[in-house]
């Protein structure tokens, strides 16, 4: 198709500029708003409760052996597997094929699993009994309603 230079070619060079109907203060636009320094992120529970995401797992409590420390049936436990379990840590353990939450007691070669409910007796580990510590409980989340 043959064309001759016309107004349409001129139009190619006419680029409409976008119009922004907002107040602009001359001389200031190159600088970031001073308020930016004060812009902080809102509180994020994930960040607070889960400091090491790849190592953190949520679990659900089914038993009532730890009610004394606010761990009830239905509570959610934040379990961090990266932490080293110490004596008095609250831990999720595998004992006799079952996962349970207990307070760990380690002293002078004696290892016990303590409950926080007087109706449950402490479990003292006997020779040859295998205890696998699955993770350390760092937070408990319990609904109030």
């Amino acid at each position: 198709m043959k064309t001759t230079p016309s107004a349409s070619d001129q139009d190619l060079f006419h680029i409409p500029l976008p119009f922004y109907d907002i107040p602009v203060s001359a001389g200031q636009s190159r600088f970031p708003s001073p308020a930016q320094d004060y812009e902080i992120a809102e509180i994020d529970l994930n960040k607070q409760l889960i400091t090491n995401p790849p190592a953190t797992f949520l679990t659900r409590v089914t038993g009532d052996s730890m009610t004394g420390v606010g761990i009830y049936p239905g509570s959610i436990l934040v379990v961090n597997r990266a932490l080293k379990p110490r004596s008095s840590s609250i831990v999720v353990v595998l004992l006799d094929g079952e996962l349970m939450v207990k307070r760990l007691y380690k002293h002078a070669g004696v290892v016990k699993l303590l409950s926080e409910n007087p109706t449950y007796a402490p479990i003292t580990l006997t020779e040859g009994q295998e205890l696998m510590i699955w993770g350390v409980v760092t937070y408990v989340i319990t609904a109030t309603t």
Partner: protein
Amino acid sequence: MSLPQPLKSVYALADANSFYASCEKVFRPELEGKPVVVLSNNDGCVIAQSKEAKAALALYMCRPWFEVKEAAEQIGTIAFSSNYELYGAMSNRFVQTLRHFSPRVEVYSIDESFMDMTGLKRDLNVYGHEIKHTVRQWTGLPICVGFGHSKTLAKLANHCAKKQPGWDGVCDLTSLSVPELDHLLASLEISTVWGVGKRLERRLHAVGVTNVLRLKHADPKRIRDKFGVLLERTVRELNGEVWLELDQMMPEANQVMSSRSFGHRLDSLTDLQAAISFHAGNAAERMRKKGLYANAVYVFIQNSPHDEAPYYCGQQMIALPSPTNSTQQITKAALWLLNKVYQPGVYYLKGGVMLMELVAEGGQQRELFGFSQQDSKNHRLMGTIDQVNAKYGRGTVKTAAEGVRQDWQMRRVLKSPGYLHQWKDLLKVR
């Protein structure tokens, strides 16, 4: 005065052992030491085995479950339907943990990642054990780590770490003297080398290349003439020359990956959808060329670990209702996954689609309600799309990006709970 020597590259490959079975065991710790198998979609075939199952049921891999069920249950095997969402999430945790050990990690597959260790002033054997221990402690996954001066050597080191008990799960080929390394290579079958399959092994045997050491010492030019440029590259890599950079892949037998860095950083979902659709179509086409069908789709998007912003890598996997080679189905699944991993405010630099658990045309079942790939209409459509694209260039014909509803029904009666995805399915502790 001597000029400083250029740093010799060092790569690590971290590979999870019996990955799917190990993921199941993390949430069922009482199964430690017990045989576990994972079944494909619709509980069809055995697609993964724990090492205990491997020892007793080695021949059962890829066999239909109904055929092997009785023998498996006799030795106390626990079977699971595949829970790809869980495996995808655990894979993500695995990679996140590895990032504590190297700034440059390349996800190679769902259960393997390469790491750049060049210039690290550490005893690599000790470091490897630290990585292995940390991944096990944090995520519960058992892994092996191999180190080498090329990716091919790192992969080979990982093979040794896994198969030869003496290494205790960590094998550092960079610490071996040349005679020690050669002695080890002479003991390895050629098919243990990355990218060399059984067929190529037979052809190499026929010309007297019977072990990895002989392959290493083969003349690269003659190898190229007779076997092609890929194997030449492998020979050079076996000699410690770097021919594959961190982001360059070798094709894996049982998966097809399409991924690359975006031309520029993308932050809008629309742009990412376009990119992921492209990769889905590309991967599907490459898979069809091999005459294969996918059982699962895996999607990842990430920003650069060198960015000032925090590193984010979203990755998820989903099982398909029945094996498919359809671009539409794969694109739908990929976009659905993209929606799940997309986080606004991240400037993504790279993304891709991986098709996994590939099966041959013959080995599939017909779905009752789903789409069947035997369906000749779809078959013809895919053939036509590939032809048009071959003639007029990729992307001439492509799918309109559609949303996808997860209304796929599958028989997965042995599936473990959604421990990481559903509040009601959280791991229970008494």
